[in-house]
């Protein structure tokens, strides 16, 4: 597979792939990521069962659904998504730049520091020390550590990118920008509304943070990975370089301008709200160009997604990405907002983005990389298929269910019905969501079991080779 490295004029004549890529750390990151995935799922279930009034663990302080709802989102964002991306970056960046990361000891230091950050976030939330910033509930005393960690991450990966001469591949545009943005976004969201501004202005910054965390940390890393893996798997270049440029620069310009759309109809000045709405619709057009570019790349090789499982994960994620962006272009309008804001419609949207798109991409990358890291093929293709179908299917049901449920909640409120009515109307949707969540969890368990078995096989193969 190392043949897949794109040809660059600065490529040294011979590269020792094992010196370039630090394999053990990738495995470590992926295992940490999967652990937090389980933690996040547990948090989701606590709240999901609470909503249908069947929480078996009622009244236990450390297991309060309100606190675990925050662990749920933080564990998926900082535990699963961040860890999995860091692992994948250790694979992709050295291969794209032909240079190892800045320092391998630093890599392990970052790994350790990041686990401390995520664990103390989870612990802090469990003990009721949240910060009132959505997606940034990390207790305030952890924020400086996390900020330092992000700086080190940037140094470790930006160094090889900077040392690389010659043209930069699309992926590296996204990565380079993502390292700058993530650092700035975290600093802005966690410090400005806590220490520098208050009230409505803090709301504007908070909205910007929620938004940029997805748009400037997760999204550029995700698309960067797609631009890297998809051509390798299809063994052909991206369809249009021009469209790649439009996609990147369109995202870079329009994405950061939209934060306020999370707080429409608040006391934030109306002209700023209009600005956010317009730039959101603009970015959906940019998204369309990126999607077209990737489907243009697939054109003629469509059947590859049947047999090639990682590719199927990637393209399913892209379809969900398109759906969720289309949904966004509708829901961001003030007409829709009046009805669906505060409802489960938005929760459906968030799940579609964080799981349906980015987690699916990362699970696809793991499906691709684990056999290469362990040196043996997957133990069971069937389990891998189950993993895919339960995840993709469960997600579709969950998102559709919550989005639809949100409409009913919105109508119930607007009709001034008593509050219990909006709860009664939600019950079937909340029950369906639990079932979809169980399916998704089943998929992840199948994956983890498959991974365990694969690891056993790889150990067996290695001991045999040693004899």
């Amino acid at each position, binding site marked *: 597979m190392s043949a897949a490295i794109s040809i660059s004029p600065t490529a040294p004549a011979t590269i020792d792939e094992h010196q370039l890529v630090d394999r053990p750390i990738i495995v470590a990151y992926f295992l940490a990521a999967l652990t937090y995935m389980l933690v996040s799922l547990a948090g989701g279930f606590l709240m999901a069962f609470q*909503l*249908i009034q069947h929480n078996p663990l009622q*009244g236990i*302080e450390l297991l*309060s*659904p*309100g*606190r675990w*709802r925050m662990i749920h989102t933080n564990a998926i964002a900082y535990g699963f998504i961040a860890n999995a991306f860091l692992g994948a970056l250790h694979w992709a960046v050295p291969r794209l730049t032909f240079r190892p990361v800045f320092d391998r000891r630093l890599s392990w230091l970052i790994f350790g520091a990041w686990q401390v950050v995520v664990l103390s976030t989870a612990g802090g939330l469990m003990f*009721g*020390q*949240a910060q*009132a*910033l*959505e997606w940034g509930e990390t207790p305030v005393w952890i924020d400086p550590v996390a900020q330092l960690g992000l700086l080190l991450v940037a140094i470790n990966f930006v160094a090889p*990118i900077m040392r690389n001469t010659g*043209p*930069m591949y699309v992926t590296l*545009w996204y990565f*380079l*920008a993502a390292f*700058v*943005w993530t650092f*700035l976004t975290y600093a*802005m969201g966690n410090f*400005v*509304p806590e220490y520098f*501004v*208050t*009230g*409505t*202005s*803090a709301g*504007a910054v908070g*909205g*910007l943070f*929620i938004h940029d965390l997805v748009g400037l940390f997760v999204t550029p890393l995700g698309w960067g990975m797609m631009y890297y893996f998809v051509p390798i798997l299809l063994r052909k270049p991206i369809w249009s370089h021009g469209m790649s440029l439009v996609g*990147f*620069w369109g995202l*870079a*310009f329009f994405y*950061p*301008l939209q*934060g306020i759309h*999370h*707080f429409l*109809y608040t*006391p934030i*000045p109306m002209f*700023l709200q209009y*600005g956010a709405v317009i730039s959101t619709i603009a970015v959906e057009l940019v998204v369309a160009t990126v999607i077209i570019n990737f489907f243009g790349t697939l054109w003629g090789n469509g059947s590859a997604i049947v047999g090639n499982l990682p590719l199927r994960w990637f393209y399913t994620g892209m379809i969900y990405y398109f759906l969720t962006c289309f949904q966004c272009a509708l829901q961001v309008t003030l007409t829709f907002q009046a*009805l669906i*804001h505060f*409802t489960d419609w938005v929760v459906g949207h968030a799940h579609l983005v964080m799981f349906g798109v980015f987690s699916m991409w990362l699970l696809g990358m793991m499906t691709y990389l684990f056999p290469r890291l362990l040196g043996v093929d997957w133990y069971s293709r069937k389990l891998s298929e189950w993993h895919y179908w339960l995840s993709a299917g469960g997600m579709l049901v969950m998102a559709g269910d919550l989005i639809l449920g949100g409409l009913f909640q*919105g109508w119930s*409120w607007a009709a*001034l019905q008593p*509050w219990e009515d909006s*709860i009664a109307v939600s019950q079937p949707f*909340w029950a369906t969501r639990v079932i979809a969540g169980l399916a998704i969890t089943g998929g992840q368990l199948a994956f983890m079991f498959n991974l365990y078995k694969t690891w056993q096989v790889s150990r067996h193969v290695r001991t045999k080779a040693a004899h």
Partner: protein
Amino acid sequence: MFETKSGVFFVAGLAFFAFAFLSNALVPHLMYRDLPEQTVAELVNGNLRYQFEDLAQRYPEPFQQVYGTPPAGDAADEWFDAKCAEALELGHDVYVGEGCWHCHSQFVRPVSNEDRRYGPVSESWEYQNELQRPVLFGTRRVGPDLCREGGRRSNDWHAVHFFKPTDLSPTSPMPQYPWLYDGASDKPNERGLALITYVQWLGSWLESYPYYEEYERLPLKDAELQAANSESGTGVAP
């Protein structure tokens, strides 16, 4: 520029980010710079003081355990104000730590009949205080909006509700919070008293306090109303 390191780093990475921050975050900040930010002590108002003293009377033992006894004479006034501010701040921290703000919003929108359900549409000055760092607008309503909640329910209603919501609202998916009590719903502990104070504060700064859904004044003549008020002796505005 479009494919170079410096282009990506400085233009996309730094410049676009800065432009967005200045236009989206600095502009509202500059617009509201003349609205003073109130401290917690300044947030204690007559309506809230009334509720806080009501807590002292309803739950004398828990209250005394947590706050001690008020001094005699004029000093009591200051004492109650100080303790009330203390409770308000702790109540805010409990509200944040328990994630109440993920199930309850704190702003009334000018659409979807919300002013009829909750009360007057929210305005900027209402959020210009220390307890809105970061702001608690919220993004999801599993339960109703709370920014006009103060005075809408009595203290003992809240005490029973936080202890076990289904006792008052049988189909409620709201979690129980028994750790805010010493074993029974009539024994709120320090955090419990504080949270009730915080919830009673929400909206207490408005003229329309307390706001009830479809609330209409009784068709009493003004004189009768005044007489009734002075009799009950609560001293709270009608």
